[in-house]
């Protein structure tokens, strides 16, 4: 139960990100979630899309360096304390979180967190045992 995140190498230069989003829009690619990690010289754009295979092909054909990483997408109720509950579980089980970012779907009252952890399978097991709902790539279409 995971979703496929696409990360793209983007140099820190004016207009670079616009070029990339233009390419996605021309190819009718709808982004569900987006986050950027940046350093002085470059950034890593991370996106969640419905059709990750198509998106990766479009990016590669346009000369971008990108890769696909399976990450966890956790569904929770959109209210105070929801994220904390999940992070507590990770902490108690000594599961290291590399990075995380949030997005909202179209479902009323629900919010989603992308979790990038070192050990996907183990984390999925533990979260599931604690009653945390996770969604898969196919569920993204419904959101």
């Amino acid at each position, binding site marked *: 139960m995971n979703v496929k*995140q696409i*990360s793209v*190498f*983007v*140099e820190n230069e004016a207009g*670079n990100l616009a070029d990339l989003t233009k390419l996605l829009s021309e190819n009718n690619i709808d982004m569900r979630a987006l986050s950027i*990690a940046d*350093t002085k*010289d*470059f950034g*890593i754009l*991370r996106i969640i899309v419905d059709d990750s295979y198509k998106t990766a092909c479009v990016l590669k054909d346009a*000369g*971008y*360096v*990108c*890769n696909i*990483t399976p990450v966890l997408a956790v569904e929770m109720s959109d209210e105070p304390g929801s994220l904390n509950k999940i992070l507590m579980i990770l902490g108690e089980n000594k599961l290291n979180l*590399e*990075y995380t970012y949030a997005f909202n779907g179209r479902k009323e009252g629900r919010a989603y967190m992308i979790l*990038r952890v070192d050990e996907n399978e183990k984390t999925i097991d533990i979260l599931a045992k604690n009653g945390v709902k996770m969604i898969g790539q196919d569920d993204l279409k419904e959101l």
Partner: protein
Amino acid sequence: MPVILNNDRERNLKLMENYFQPEVECASREEIKALQSERLVKQVKHVYDNVPYYRKKMEEKGVTPEDIKSIDDLHKLPFLTKDDLREAYPYGLVATPLEDCVRIQSTSGTTGRRVVAFYTQDDLDIWENCCARAIVAAGGTKSDVVHVSYGYGLFTGGPGLNGGSHKMGALTLPMSSGNTDRQIQFMCDLGSTILCCTPSYAAYLGETITEKGLKDEIKLKAGIFGAEAWTEEMRHDIENTLGIKAYDIYGLTEISGPGVAFECSAQTGMHINEDHFIAEVINPKTGEVLPDGEKGELVFTSITKKAFPLLRYRTKDICILSREKCSCGRTHVKMTKPMGRSDDMLIIKGVNVFPSQIETVLLNQGYPANYQIIVTRENNSDQLEVQVEMTAEMFSDTISKVEANEKALISALKSMLGIYAKVKLVAPKTIARSEGKAVRIIDKRNLYQN
């Protein structure tokens, strides 16, 4: 016995010109030529008898020691290049038994590019005397405190000037490089009068001294700066910030180290120590010897050193030779500052860097061989940046992994080159792929003045 000359050219100062070895430094051209011829004939025989590598080269060219009767026959000898040094590494060009050698010096770089030079005690004396001539030409006397901030160790800078300072009897401060605060403190406390280091370090010391407001506390009067290219603007900057007269010095480990040539009070080129090194300028493409005044590649023949005597060694430095009479009274030929290179070697922070070394590291680390080297000089300090295209293999969704790869590359470059290189990861296909020869080097320093 110091020879006193009137020199009204420079800053209306009456300069007293001193020489370390006046009988040689001011010998007549005829005497120099005769001395060179005599020494060359002996040296060729010494090399032919003791260096099979060079003997083979001579045989291939059909030259025997008997063909070399005077300096006029020098052009008959085969050239040596850095490739020969690599092929003959480490002992192939050593002409004396190793038990007669007392020192090794080396350049930075990897095995292939590294120069390892050997010295007998006499060879060291020759080298140090050459450095002593340079210090005396810069106004040095026995009462000076010579502050040597070149690196000590395998690098020839520190040991060369240190030895030269000993030879001319000055009080020598073997500071070596780095630890700027201590450098300045010693300079103030111990009254250093002559500074020897790279010009970029001199500029940095000057800035730091100015910032600390210590300019009045230092007693420096002259500096001898070499091991990297520098401009006249930089000379003026250094002279102003440190309140000194700045002298250039030239050398290379292959031939001995610093002191192969040095600047005198006239500062219109560097006198080559012709009693030890014969200089020629050649057309780098054809190998043809060019007349004085023409620009070409500098070639040295070592005529007195015994352990590592290179004959017709191609330096790849482009310059012009001049035998016009010098106002300082020295008669040895003068070379201009190097005006460029006939190969793609860069000198960064005094260290020889070949683009091929960088290429090797990139390929070993899994990066494409498409790269660009950008050299700048910021605050008088050289900066090297290597731009390399990101690949799918080196990319990751986490910053920490990308940075770990980047750090691994930086440290591999550092161990190959001996200096820090900033790495800039750029997007694929952004480095221009030229149709012919790739423009891999962008040197923004404009070091060479033509």
